[in-house]
């Protein structure tokens, strides 16, 4: 298996053209980015609103739990039958699966902001919107990105599954390899899909660390020193 996979990886034919690795990786990242962008536009405002006002939290958490139980393959095949075109069907399916984790992260982030901090913000004269954008959102940002990380993992995995209904991207190697029993191609596809997921997750983890507001970081340092 290892020798065959290395042979596949060493074959220049697999590295160029529309079916080559670079093109497939770009395609895969493209679907993930598109679905993520749409999901962010839907999920972040709703999460902020629910977190800020506290209304509809039960509904939001419940919806998130239901979507976690949704079988991704079922979602993708269902949308394919409804829309009859691979790419739009897959993207709609991806968006449906990416919205809940982002919404939950955003809501939980805003919700977890220390009420004393929000009180203090009102105390120094901040209005609702100022409080939201200058206090709650910056403090919530790491948790929002936590939701985005979960969503991206889900998206990379589901985009590969969506190759079943004809979507491009790295899932093609898995599906096409399985269809012709070319196990080397399947393993190569699996390795690239896994590597892409790990790399994207590491990038987001790095981003998550850098967006922690300075004040919050100082406060954490102070408490951990106080505890020690």
């Amino acid at each position, binding site marked *: 298996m290892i020798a065959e996979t290395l042979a596949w990886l060493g074959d220049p034919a697999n590295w160029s053209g529309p079916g080559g690795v670079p093109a497939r990786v770009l395609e895969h990242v493209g679907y993930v980015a598109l679905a993520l962008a749409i999901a962010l536009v839907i999920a972040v405002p709703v999460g902020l609103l629910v977190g800020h006002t506290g209304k509809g939290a039960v509904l939001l958490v419940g919806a998130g739990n239901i979507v976690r139980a*949704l079988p991704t393959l079922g979602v993708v095949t269902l949308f394919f*039958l409804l829309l009859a075109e691979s790419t739009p069907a897959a993207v709609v399916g991806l968006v449906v699966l990416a919205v809940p984790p982002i919404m939950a992260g955003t809501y939980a982030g805003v919700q977890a902001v220390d009420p004393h901090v929000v009180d203090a913000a009102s105390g120094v004269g901040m209005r609702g919107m100022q409080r939201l954008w200058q206090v709650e959102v910056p403090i919530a940002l790491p948790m929002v990105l936590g939701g985005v990380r979960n969503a991206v993992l889900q998206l990379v995995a589901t985009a590969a599954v969506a190759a079943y209904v004809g979507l491009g991207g790295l899932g093609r190697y898995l599906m096409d390899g399985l269809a012709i029993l070319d196990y080397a191609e399947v393993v190569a596809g699996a390795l690239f899909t896994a590597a892409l997921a790990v790399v994207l997750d590491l990038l987001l983890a790095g981003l998550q660390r850098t967006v922690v507001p300075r004040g919050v970081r100082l406060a954490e340092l102070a408490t951990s020193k106080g505890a020690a």
Partner: protein
Amino acid sequence: MSITDELATYLGSANTRAQLWAALAEHCYLALLPILLGVVLAVGAGWLGRTWPPVRGTLAVAANLVYTIPSLALFVVIPGVIGTTILDSVNVVIALSLYTAALLVRPMLDALDAVPQAVTASATAMGYRPARRFFGVELPLAVPVLAAGVRVAAVSNISLVSVGALIGVGGLGRLFTDGFQREYYAPIVVGVVLTLLLALVVDLLLVLLRRVLTPWQRPASPNRPVAAGEAA
């Protein structure tokens, strides 16, 4: 033909119903056996992390890495690694066991750390040796946190099994490939609904199991609401 007529025709066939039961049973086996194996693995990891702390960082990184790997990729690579055929259901069971363990390692270690020192010291003073103290005192006290993780893992396993249909082992997932190949809504809709129902039922059973396993949490507050951190 409307979707309701389609569903009625589909479910009206005794043959279909027999297939559905078989698919449901296979789905339960493929999703729940890994929960058991995953819990055992996570408990082992917890024990290792307690007795030999330097390994904890490695455990956490490994768990994160496994959790990051997309399911379809893991399903197809496992046969190459352990030498099973690609259609073997063992592949799916192993992959989902790894996901379950990966999800549980972190909460397991945190929960064991949260056991008050006074409690472990009392157990030691009463003559509990490390192994008995771990299984008799520390592990039961970690159950509430572990249970929250198990609920998440169970629901995600039930959803992930379907992906196995792409390699020929999928329980209810086969309804999706069937519906796709025949351009037929009914099996897909039934498959999605049954998966959601199964997830709901298993989740309720796990809540009950947690109550049975943590009797000391009940008398104090019989109608104890689920704490925010445990809502799965």
